[in-house]
């Protein structure tokens, strides 16, 4: 391989339209044999995630920016996130507690926490479906790993969650909810939910760049699942009441969202630890990541073409 100096001519071709069997320069044959250069490889898929994590200063900053963005020139600023959730929880809580005859001291925190968790999950899924479509400009201008956009989304939702948690804190104080050591399980539960938010965004996001029907379908399904998940209704109560209602309520256990909500909600409102929810959520985490990694491996390089 001859060294290339700035002012010397380089390359064997000159003033000639190259034919199909072009003469390759010395470097070329060795790179065609290099399997690791293939776009569809596990090393590239994991490399994408690794590189995305390494850019955490960038997406960390951008995530904060996204939050401050919505509240420029406002006095209360991001606290509006908390206030609006608080108002929603209060309104729904008082109404449904009266309708279903639930004690306010239990139901209001139950509902508020359910809403906070749902907000996080639903946003990760709905915005995850559009994450690459929304970032088309950046994807086509910057050679950034795809995971940067996903991490930014999840981080932003985590920040929203952090704001909303103030509502829960307020309710715990007001109703003097008893939180034992078991409540510390909330932290690993949150970590599990965050992990799942990421794979969902990767999986659905990539497919959605190819099939643009996916985002609206996702939104509809998520809206439907909100009602199928015991957030505004207390399924344990229905089960304990017995009868046919209990049987139908037990069907709710088939809903994966229930398990995710429960692993975080139970410690936050001082309820006992239920291992079966953890089993389901951890299984979903593993299977989900496997699927997302497969899609990432196969279609990572296509996203910039599809978007």
């Amino acid at each position, binding site marked *: 391989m001859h060294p290339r100096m700035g002012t010397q001519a380089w390359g064997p071709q*000159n003033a000639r339209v190259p034919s199909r069997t072009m003469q390759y320069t010395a*470097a070329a044959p060795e790179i065609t044999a290099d399997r690791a250069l293939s776009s569809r490889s596990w090393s590239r898929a994991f490399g994408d995630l690794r590189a995305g994590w390494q850019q955490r200063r*960038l997406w960390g900053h951008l995530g904060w920016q996204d939050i401050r963005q919505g509240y420029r020139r406002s006095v209360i600023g991001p606290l509006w996130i908390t206030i609006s959730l608080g108002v929603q929880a209060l309104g729904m809580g008082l109404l449904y507690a009266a309708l279903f005859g639930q004690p306010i001291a239990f139901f209001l925190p139950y509902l508020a926490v359910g809403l906070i968790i749902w907000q996080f999950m639903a946003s990760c899924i709905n915005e995850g479906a559009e994450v690459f479509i929304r970032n088309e400009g950046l994807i086509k201008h910057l050679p950034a790993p795809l995971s940067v956009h996903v991490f930014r989304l999840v981080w932003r939702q985590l920040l929203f969650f952090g704001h909303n948690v103030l509502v829960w804190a307020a309710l715990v104080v007001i109703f003097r909810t008893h939180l034992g050591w078991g409540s510390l399980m909330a932290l690993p539960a949150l970590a599990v939910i965050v992990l799942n938010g990421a794979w969902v965004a990767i999986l659905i996001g990539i497919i959605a760049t190819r099939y643009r029907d996916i985002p609206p379908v996702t939104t509809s399904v998520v809206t439907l699942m909100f009602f199928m998940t015991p957030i505004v209704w207390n399924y344990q109560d229905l089960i304990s009441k017995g009868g046919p209602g209990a049987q139908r309520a037990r069907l709710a256990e088939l809903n994966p969202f229930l398990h995710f909500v429960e692993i975080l909600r139970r410690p936050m409102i001082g309820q006992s630890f239920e291992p079966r929810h953890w089993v389901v959520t951890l299984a979903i985490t593993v299977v989900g990541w496997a699927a997302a990694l497969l899609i990432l491996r196969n279609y990572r390089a296509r996203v910039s073409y599809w978007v």
Partner: protein
Amino acid sequence: MVSIDVCGACVNFPIFDAKTRSLKKALLGTVGRAGGKIGMDAKVPVIEALRDITLSLRHGDRVGLIGHNGAGKSTLLRLLSGIYEPTMGVSRIVGKVAPVFDLGVGMDPEISGYENIIIRGLFLGMTRKQMEARTEEIAEFSELGDYLSMPLRTYSTGMRVRLALGVVTSIDPEILLLDEGIGAVDAAFLEKARERLTALVERSGILVFASHSDEFLLELCSSGLWLDHGQIREQGDLRTVLSHYKGKDPYENLSPEALTRVAEATR
């Protein structure tokens, strides 16, 4: 050491319209094939933007990319930066790429000039500390003064370009890819920017610069790559390739100041 190796690369863009993007139509298409076509061709038309691209760039290469509009220069730059991975063939990029296709990408109109400097730098692969160290020289270069504390939306287009140019020319790129737009600044500022641009290029490991301006190309680059309809038509010494492309020696059209600058650059 930085390097870019591309071998037999092709870049084909699928053209999606409403029909081929629809999941419903894709599913119905497969069902219909069993019993007979449902009156729609499921094949997606493709644009072959680049064909059979083979090149090797090493540290010290300064390549000027020339060609008519639509030849594929911007696409080739994106291939070299890693934004598009080749649909056929292979490419290997070693080193950090600083693509400058759009001066202001990632800049946020709602935040101040100072914060935008940081963000733009982060997008270009610098760290926050590095950008903070450079903020003062960028502020001085852009001559924006107190405006730097104001949100970007209060700036005129010229001011935004000055700020963006200031940030972009302050980085230490291993591989620098410039697309034509960077030359589009007002003449008075161009003088000041020229020096910084030259310094930036000297700091870069590899430069690939797509431009229609002979002056800029001759000043900054030494090799030329002529792209025609997605294929490499010619590679070699810049002046030679430009002569073939233009049909006459590019030195004929340069002003005396430009000639001296070019002479200095090629010294």
